[in-house]
C-alpha cells in the first residue's frame, strides 16, 4: 500500500492534469491555442496517474493523441508542454508536433501518436529492444477502445505474444471512439478478452476512476510483463469534453450520461473523498495543492505565451538525422 506521501503526490498529479486540461480548453476557445486537434484527458486522470506510478523510471510509456495526461504523469514540466500547445520553439516537440505529438526522450515518454493504433507496433518494438539487450524494462502502451478494432492492434499484439515482449497493453475504455459506442463496433465488447486470441495473459478489467485500483492492477501487470511477457488490462473510464475540443455536440447529446460520471464517478473527486476519510484533517493540505497546481498551470501559460515561434529555418531541421 502506497504511503501518504505517495498518495498526495498522485493527488497532486491528478489535480495538475485536470487544471492543465481545463486551461487548454479555455485557451482553445479563446483562440490562444489554435489548430483543429486537441483531445483532453479530463475524466481519465486515475488511469494515467495510477498506471505511470506503477512504472520504474527506466520503464517506458507510449500513448495515442490523448497524451497530455501521460506526459504530465511522467513528470514532464508543464511549461514546455503548454508551449507545445501554442506551437512555440521551446515546446517539448519544438512546436512541430502540437497537442497530439508530445514526447520526451529524457522521461522515457515515447510520444503521443495521431494515427489510431499506429503506436502499438512501436510499443512492441521498444519492448523488443529491452529484451534484445537483456534489460528488464517494460513498456506501458495505452490505447483507446476504438484502437482495439484496428489491424495494427492484431498484428502488434500477436507479435508481442510470440516473442514474449514486455508490453502492458492498457485499454482506456471510455465508451466511445469519436461518436461510436464500443458495443456497436467491437464483436467482443469485453475488450480485455481480446488477449485470449493471442494466447496472452488477460488481467481483466478495472474501474478506471479509482486510482488505487488502477495502480494495483497495473503493478501486477508490470511484474508479469517484466518476468514473462505481454499482458492486457482494460480500465473503464469516460471522456468529459467530447472526442476533441472542437467536438461540441457530443456532450449535449449525452448530457445525462456525462452528468452521472461527473457527479458520481469523477476520479479526482473520488480520490479526494478517499483521502479525506483516510486522513482526518487533510483538507487544508489538499486545498494548498489545488492552489499550487492552479499557479503552476498559470505560470506555464505565461511562460508559453512569452516564447518565440519557430522560424523559417526550423521548417527544414530534423527531416533527416
Amino acid at each position, binding site marked *: 500500500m502506497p504511503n501518504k506521501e505517495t498518495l498526495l503526490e498522485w493527488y497532486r498529479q491528478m489535480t495538475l492534469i485536470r487544471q492543465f486540461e481545463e486551461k487548454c480548453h479555455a485557451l482553445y476557445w479563446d483562440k490562444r491555442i489554435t489548430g483543429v486537434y486537441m483531445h483532453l484527458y479530463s475524466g481519465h486522470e486515475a488511469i494515467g496517474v495510477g498506471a505511470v506510478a506503477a512504472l520504474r523510471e527506466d520503464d517506458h510509456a507510449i500513448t495515442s493523441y490523448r497524451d497530455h495526461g501521460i506526459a504530465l504523469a511522467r513528470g514532464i514540466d508543464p511549461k514546455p508542454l503548454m508551449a507545445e500547445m501554442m506551437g512555440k520553439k521551446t515546446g517539448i516537440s519544438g512546436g512541430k508536433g*502540437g497537442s497530439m505529438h508530445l514526447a520526451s526522450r529524457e522521461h522515457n515518454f515515447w510520444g503521443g501518436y495521431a494515427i489510431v493504433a499506429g503506436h502499438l507496433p512501436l510499443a512492441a518494438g521498444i519492448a523488443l529492444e529491452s529484451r534484445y539487450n537483456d534489460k528488464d524494462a517494460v513498456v506501458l502502451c495505452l490505447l483507446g477502445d476504438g484502437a482495439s478494432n*484496428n489491424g495494427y492492434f492484431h498484428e502488434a499484439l500477436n507479435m508481442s505474444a510470440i516473442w514474449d515482449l514486455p508490453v502492458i497493453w492498457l485499454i482506456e475504455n471510455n465508451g466511445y471512439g469519436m461518436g461510436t459506442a464500443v458495443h456497436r463496433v467491437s464483436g467482443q465488447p469485453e475488450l480485455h478478452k481480446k488477449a485470449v486470441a493471442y494466447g496472452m495473459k488477460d488481467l481483466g478489467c478495472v474501474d478506471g476512476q479509482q486510482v488505487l485500483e488502477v495502480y494495483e492492477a497495473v503493478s501486477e501487470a508490470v511484474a508479469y510483463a517484466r518476468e514473462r511477457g505481454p499482458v492486457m488490462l482494460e480500465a473503464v473510464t469516460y471522456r468529459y469534453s467530447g472526442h476533441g475540443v472542437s467536438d461540441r455536440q457530443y456532450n449535449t447529446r449525452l448530457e445525462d450520461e456525462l452528468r452521472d460520471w461527473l457527479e458520481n464517478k469523477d476520479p479526482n473527486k473520488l480520490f479526494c473523498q478517499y483521502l479525506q476519510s483516510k486522513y482526518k484533517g487533510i483538507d487544508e493540505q489538499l486545498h494548498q495543492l489545488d492552489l499550487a497546481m492552479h499557479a503552476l498551470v498559470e505560470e506555464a501559460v505565461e511562460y508559453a505565451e512569452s516564447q518565440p515561434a519557430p522560424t523559417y529555418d526550423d*521548417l527544414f531541421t530534423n527531416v533527416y538525422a
Partner: protein
Amino acid sequence: MGQKNLPMREALRRALLEEMRRDEKIFVMGEEVGYWQGTHRVTRGFIDEFGEKRVRDTPISEMAIAGVAVGAAMAGLRPVAEMMTINFAFLAFDAIINHAAKIRYMFDGQFTVPLVIRAASGWGDQATASHSHTPEPIFAHFPGLYVGCPATPADAYGMLKASIRDDNPVLFTESIALYSRPGPVPDDEDYLVPIGKSDVKREGQHVTLVAYARGVDWALQAANDLAKEGIECEVVDLRWLRPLDLEPVYESFKKTNRCVVVEESLPHFSFGSEIAAQLQENAFDYMDAPIKRVTAADVPLPFAKEIELMALPNKDKVIQAVREVL
C-alpha cells in the same frame, strides 16, 4: 436549366443522396458516416433516410473498410466507402492498390469493381504531419484506379455522380479547405462530369496555369490579381489525375508558351513533375520558358502556424512563379 448556390459539402451530399435514391445497390460505409452524421457532414441525415443497412458505421478499420468494399463491389453491390481523411487511406493502401485497382486486370475482366472511395484531403489548420497529406498523385500512379479531385461544387456534384455510375474503382478526394466554399450547382439529377475530362476555368493568353482541387483556387486568385496588371492567365483544372486529360493543357500551351503548375501536394515525383514531363515530350517546340512548379515545401508539415503557412502554397507564390516565367 436552373441552378442553386451550394457549398461543396452540400453538393457532394446531394449527389450521393440522389444516387442512393436512384439505385438500391449503392450503400455507404465508413467511420462515423451514420449516427455522427459524417465527420465532414457529407452523409448528414443519411442514417434516418436509409437506415443501418445502407449507411454502415464501421470500426476504425481502414484496411477492412477498403477491402470489404472491394469484395462487395466484386459481388455486385456499389459501395461508396469513406475514409474519414485521406491520411488514413494509407492503412488501406494495399486493398486499394493491389486489389481495387488490379482485380479486373489480373482475372482478365472476370470481375469489375464499381467502387468509390471518398476521402477528405488536404493540409492546413495545424493538423500536423500525420494528418496533413494530399497524396492524390501517389494513388494516380497506379493503372486500374481512377482519381477524381473536384475544385468547385458543380464539379464535385457531377464528378461524384459520374464516379458512382462508373464500373471502375475511383479514389475521390474532397479538399477540406473547399468544403464550405459555395458555388452554382445545376438542378439536374443526371448532371455528370465525364471521367477524365479537364476543364478550362479561366481563359487567358499569357501563361497557362495547370492545377487540381485547391490548387485551382490559388491559381484563380493569382489570375485575378495578375489581370489587374494586364497579365492574362489561362487556368486549366485537370479535375481527374486519372485518366489524365492533357489536351486542353497542350492547346493552351501552344498559345501561351509558358506554364506554371500549382498543387497542394509535395514536389518530388509529383503532379507537377508529370505535367512538366509530358509538356516537354509533347509540346517542346512551343516552350519559351522553364515550366515552374508551385507546391508545398518538401517537409512533413509542422504544427506551429507561422512555419506551417510558410510551407504551404498560396496565391502569392503562384504570382511570383508567373513573373518568373514571363
